[in-house]
């Protein structure tokens, strides 16, 4: 893989994962606004929005972070030329 290819792949992955992160993060206030009661329905005995924002978001962050880091570091090791 060339340096330029690696850079393009890293940026593409960063933007892709950032979009997933931003969409899930900022859709919650909108869902809270337009579907308040649905967001308060209990899941495992806990209002859904408390569970989602207080717990599930963190798990999402961990998954996104590991995906990005493993891929980025692997691509950097695969760079063959000096650009």
């Amino acid at each position, binding site marked *: 893989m060339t340096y330029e290819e690696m850079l393009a792949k890293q940026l593409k992955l960063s933007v892709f994962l950032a979009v997933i992160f931003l969409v899930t993060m900022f859709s919650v206030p909108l869902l*809270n*606004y337009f579907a308040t009661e649905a967001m308060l329905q*209990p899941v495992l005995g*806990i209002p859904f929005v408390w569970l989602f924002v207080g717990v599930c978001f963190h798990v999402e962050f961990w998954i996104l972070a590991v995906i990005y880091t493993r891929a980025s570091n692997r691509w950097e090791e695969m760079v063959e030329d000096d650009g």
Partner: protein
Amino acid sequence: MMDNLPLIAGLVVLIATIVIGLWSARKSATLSDYWVAGRSVGVFTNASAISSNYLSAASFLGVAAAVWGSGFDGVWYATGFAAGYILLLFFIASPLRRFGKYTIPDFCEGRFNSRRLRQVGITCTMVISTLYIIAQMVGVGTVMEAIVPGMPFELGLAILGTIITLYVTFGGMTGVTLTQMLQFWIMITAILLPLFVLLPKYGYGEILQHAYQQTEVREEGPTTITGDSAFTETEQERFPTGHSWIAPFGKYNLFSSISLLVALVCGTAGLPHILARFYTNPDGAKARWSTVWVLVFIGIFYITTPIWGAYGRMVLGVDAVMYDEAGEPGPNTAMFLISEQAGQWAKALIAAGGVAAVLSTISGLLIALSSAIAHDLYGEILKPDASDKSKIIAAKVAVIACGVVAILLSMGFRKWGIAWMVGLAFAVAASTLFPLLVSGIWWSKMTEAGAIAGASLGGIVSTVIVVGRFTDLWAFDQPALISVPLAFIAIFVVSKMTWKDQSEDTKSFLNKAFHALHRPDAKAPKTEEEQAAS
């Protein structure tokens, strides 16, 4: 004896910190040791230190209090504070480390070959870190008030503030790294252990249900610890009860909720004292893994804080919280009151965690502030030909000066409340350094003029909005949703307009600096220390 446990626990943390800080002074022999711990900090150690640096008194004591007082809207703080590390990981951490500098102003000048941008970087670092350190120093005084019976705020602040300043002066970043690692594990133990005792009787859902019902039966409204009414009628509307406590928008409307999230997410990724820690990793790949572990460490922490807040509301009701002068639930009391339910040992743990939280964040802020003065202003602008020995002396003088000024400012600012200062620090960081760093790292055609325009516009707009709210000119107090996009737009438009006027030499420099940020570690240009070593 049992009544003194919190004081003893706080003292143990303090003594351990002083010993480690002074012991590590022997290891701070060079400039690289002093500012970036010799760039030799491993993933686990740096992740612990970054987490500790970030988990201030506001997080350790304040987020649970925010959930207690504001319900679901307080939970956004627990998630938003962690979320910023995602953008930091995707767009900033590794390239910033790879650039091989010491400070954010170093990045500003090195990326654009611009002395003026170094000055912009210094200004941003000073403003953000000063606002932040004042709030943390106020936290020092209130923590001392809480764990030392009869201790006046000013005396507690002066004693603990002086101790922090001294161990940072001698230990530099090397000492701060080791002490922050220790402090993080004290904090995480302190926040988790009492929950294992408090929680078995109830599930999270049951706690929320009880907390929600508890607030419904309180009609007299919250009081201060002396029994006086905490709020005027208007102020009471700011603190939700019943359904509005458990439901969203009890405190913030839709626009303010989104704007708060933008400030927390982008502001975290623009805090100079956090960013500086990424320079301490040996390479970019390890900087990435450090960020992943930070997300895990602080994620575990922030998952528990809403449980603490809801538990406090369930067991003690609204009335038990002591509110501060600004009408916010007093972060110094909430966690102590809740932990007392498990016993004095739990209160002692929270005291130890509270002391660790203020020590760790202030030490990181002192490094950021003093590096802007001693390294960027003195070492790079005023006296670039000074010897390393002179620069280290300047560094130590700067730490002491910053510590003394921060202590004095905090004594004067306490009566104004600290929440708006932390809010302003996040808003300015989100609107200045965050857009500058992300655009500078990922857009090769960004120009000096674009960077200055973006940082200036973002800084001015965010400051005007927050100060206007503080002086009651308007009610809106969450500027990030306006100021952050404006900063990015200004960077884009001005860079586009000025790119064609750049000389070929300038374009070549900007292109070279851009690739120095991204070239894999093995192929990256050597840092100044590596060049000196070879």
